[in-house]
Each structure stands twice: as structure tokens, then as C-alpha cells.
């Protein structure tokens, strides 16, 4: 593959970055620059915001996001299989079946461990008791 095939992409990249640079630069040069506190607010009208927009939020969201990724990747794999479904035949069905079974096992495990419970209080009740505390070395 010769590099000339990428020429349109290079021109496009140049045009895009040039447009951004020129329009930002022009508005910076031409526009009057006279900031007031009201102008710098996120919203010029409406309720005055009481909190910073960036704030702490529950770590539960990360857990859900992580679980989402697992099952999202499953779909990615299934797409590749679906495109070649007829060529792969029974071998493909078997392989994807095993793969899906392993993912179902993941779902069952995650579910039983209570990772899908949004209410943390209920989850902590279900959590298994500590089997045996670690005995510290003889003091």
C-alpha cells in the first residue's frame, strides 16, 4: 500500500485543524474581551449553582461500568462470529456456546455475590461471614 492513498486523509486533517485554528484565532482577535462574573458563570440565568459540577459519586457506578464492559465485550465477540456464521458451522456454534456459558457463569457469580444489588445495606447482610481471622504471628 502506497502512502499516496492516505493523501485525502491528510488533506482532511489539515483542513479540520486549520478551520479550528483560524476560527478560534479570528474570534480572539476581533471579539471584544470584557469579562464580568456573570459572563463567566456556566449559566447566565436561572438558579445560581450551589455545588461544583465535579463531585464525588458512589463507587457503585464503577462496578456497574465494569460489569457492563464484560458483557459488552461478549457482544463484540458475537458480532465477529455472526458475520462468519455459515463458514464456521458447528465448530463456531460450539466455541461460542462454551464462551457464552462461561459468561453466564460470570453473571450467576456476580449476581449471587450481590454485585447487582444497588442497596448496599442489603448486600452487606448477604456477604459471607469471615471464615477465620488471620492469626498474627506469635507475639
Amino acid at each position, binding site marked *: 500500500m502506497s502512502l499516496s492513498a492516505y493523501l485525502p486523509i491528510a488533506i482532511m486533517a489539515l483542513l479540520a485543524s486549520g478551520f479550528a485554528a483560524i476560527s478560534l484565532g479570528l474570534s480572539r482577535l476581533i471579539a471584544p474581551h470584557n469579562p464580568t462574573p456573570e459572563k463567566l458563570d456556566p449559566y447566565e440565568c436561572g438558579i445560581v449553582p450551589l455545588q461544583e459540577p465535579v463531585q464525588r459519586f458512589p463507587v457503585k457506578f464503577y462496578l456497574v461500568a465494569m460489569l457492563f464492559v464484560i458483557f459488552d465485550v461478549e457482544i463484540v465477540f458475537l458480532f465477529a462470529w455472526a458475520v462468519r456464521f455459515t463458514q464456521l458451522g458447528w465448530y463456531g456454534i460450539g466455541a461460542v456456546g462454551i464462551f457464552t456459558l462461561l459468561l453466564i*457463569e460470570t453473571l450467576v457469580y456476580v449476581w449471587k*455475590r450481590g454485585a447487582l444489588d444497588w442497596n448496599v445495606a442489603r448486600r452487606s447482610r448477604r*456477604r*459471607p461471614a*469471615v*471464615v*477465620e481471622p*488471620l492469626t498474627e*504471628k*506469635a507475639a
Partner: protein
Amino acid sequence: MNMNLLAVAPEVIVVVAVVALLMIDVQWRPGPVWWAIAAAMGIAGATAAVALQWVDYRGADAASFFSDMIAIDGFGAFAGMVIFPLAGLGLMAAWPLIRSQGGRGAEFVVLVLIAATGAHLMAAAANLIMLFVGLEVFSISLYVLAGFTRERVDADEAALKYFLLGAVASAIFLYGIALVYASTGTTSIGGIATYLRSTILLRPGVLMAGMAMLLVGLAFKVSAAPFHMWAPDVYQGAPGGVTGFLAAGAKVAGFAAMARVLAVALGGRIDDWAPAVAVLAAVSIVLGTLLALVQSDLKRMLAYSSVAHAGFILTALVAGANGIPDMWFYVATYAVQVLAAFTVASVVSGATQGRAPLSDYTGLASRSPWLAGMLGLLMLAMAGIPLTAGFVGKAAVFRSAIDADYLWLVIVGVVSAVAGLFFYLRVIVLMYMQAADEESGHIPVPGGARVVLVAVGVLTVLIGVVPWPLLTWLRDALPL
């Protein structure tokens, strides 16, 4: 589709054990006894499967299956015979840690089993993509294991550092695969070898860059200098019970992958990569030895010593495929030694603890003569004292390097090995010639750790005194 279930039997057996372990545990909560049973069955089954592979396919009978993805050869089979028992020993050594984690202990056992599967997949891969998948399965399990005790900040730090640097290394390795594919048109390890043998590349720049990236990615994983920065922090921060398997497994899997990629896929280009490997080896040996001299923490010292050992193992690889039996000898004996050494650290300094200051070991001989004797033996073996497996290993890798005309590397190695005696002997002096603190008492040794230490001690001395059976045996542990 040439399917051969024996090719994937070790992986399948372990995965079935893992699924059974998790499902039964989450439903009925039978506790640690069930985890031990499931893990033992999985490891025993996988070990039997690789032993069967060894009997049936070593030497000329080697073959690859599943669209040339997985090989059955003496190389992969021997790697499995090291990795799966190593995982078993690692679990036994980590048992106090596993029990201390309550219900999460099952996940620890599962992660070790999965890591062993990934490690064996790395060794048995016949395709770079398969090798990368194995590498990721293995690495991701280890990242989680390194930070398994969530409440300790230094374990979190270790896990995060390991993850970030490991991810960068994986990315570099993957880019290397892409560049090698770009210049040879295949990701099959055998295919790359055939292409390079039959084709003269007029402009090998892309291939060179790809080779360099493959080498760098794997050098990260085996903690060879100058890609060793993560090792001391990770080994020191990770809980004591984990570190042994972390260090030993990474060496076995990393060097298996490195040998297959360099000696087989890129074997025709040995004149290009051997000098780079020799420099890596020399830098690792010198830097690892020098930095180990000044450590005040046993686990940190062992980490730097493992950098030096990575250098010694690389010394065998400069000979290409001819050095592989000697590499295996060193890797296998070193892996069990480092596992046992970290096991002693986990018993003395605490299985969930990260740090193991050398002051914990002052006068250990009077507190626990047994542990002190074992650690002393391991230190002597790692230093390469005759009548231990460490000596034979060093002799073997030096012979490989001399055969490949790398005399300067052998001289660097021998001088550093002598300098290294200092810090190994310092531990022994500390244990035997200094008095223990008043308040420190006798140290109880858990049963699992006892088994590990006895097994490794016997192996180290036995192989050190009569190394010939293993050395002869390893002539069959060659890649496809």
C-alpha cells in the same frame, strides 16, 4: 480444523475446576476445604495432561493444532510441568493469606489457577496472537493478586504500579506483533520462521522495530533491567503470600514466551537480536546485583536479585535455540527457589504484610532454626554455591554463552555472581551470628509453607548433587 483435545486439555481441566469451584462456592459456601479440593483436582488434572503431552509429543512428534494456534511439543509440555505444580505450591504457601480473606479467598484460588492457565498458554502458543492472549490472561490475574489485600495502601500501590507498567509493556508487545506482521505477513510463529528463512528482506527496518518491541515487552514481564523499575515496589508491596507465585510465575511464563518468540519465530535473525539480549543480560546482572547490595528489606532484596537472575537466564538465550535446555534448567530451579524464599518471608513477616525488613530476620536461627536453615539454603542456592541447583544452573547458562562466543558476558556474570555472594551471605550472617530481639519469640510455621519449603529444599539439593537426569531430560524440552 485439526482439533486435538489434548492440546487444550490442561486449560480445559483448570477452567472446569475454576467454574465448579466458583459455582459451588457461591451457592453452598462449603468454605476453604472445598477450594483446596477443587484447586488440587484442577492442578493434578492439568499436570497429568501436560505429562501426557510430554510423553506423546516431545522431540520429533511435536505438532500444532486448532488452525496452528496451539502447539504440543516438549517445550510447552515442560513449561506446564513447571507452571502447574508451581501454582499448587504457591497456593499452599498462600493458604494463611487465603483463609484470612474470608469469602474472597475463593477468588484468590481462582486467580492463581487462571494465571497458571495463561502462563501455560503463553508457553504453548504457536501464534503470536495466542501468545498475547495468554500473556494478558496471566498478567491481569497477577495485577489483581498483587493488590488482593485491599485495606493495605502499599498493596494497592503495588497493584496499580504493576497494572500501569504491565499494561504499557503489553501495548508495546502488541505493537511489536503488528510490526512483525507488517513485515512478514503472518502472526504464526512457525510461519514467521519459515518466511524469514526463505526471504531476504531488502529493507528490514520494520521487522527490526517489531523485534525490538517484542523483546522490550517481554523484558518488562521478566523484570530484566532497564525494564525492572516495577519489580521492587510490586514485590515489596504485594502481600507476602502472593509474592512468591508472582515472581516465580512471571519468570517461567515470560522466559518461555521469550524463548519461543526469539529462538523460533525470529531464529533466523539471531545475529540481530543476540547482541541486544546480551546487553540486556549484562545490564540486568550488574544493576540487579549492585542494587540488591544496598537493600534493607528482604523482599526488596529478592526483587533486585530476581533482576540479576533474569540477566543470568538471558545469558542462555544469546545462544538461541541451543541455549533453551540450559535456560529451562535455570528457570525451573530458580522459580521454585524464589517461591520458597518469599514463602519464608511470608511466614516470618506475615502473610498479609507487604514489608519484610531485614531486622525481622536478625537472630532467626534462635527463634526458628528450621526456617533459618531453609532460608540459608535458599540463599546459598541463589548465590550459586556448588552442590545446589543454583550452581549447576549458572554453569549451564555460562556454557551456553561461551558456545555462542559471548565470553565477555560470562566474565561479567561470574564477577557479579561473586559480588552477589555478599548480600546473600549477609542474610545468613544476620540470622546466625546476631542475637534476636528480646520480645520476639518462636515462629509457628503453617503446614502448607512447611510442605513447600521441604519440597523445594529437597529438590534444590537433589538437583544440585545429581543434575544429569534433568539436564538430559531437558534436551527434549525444545520448541516446535
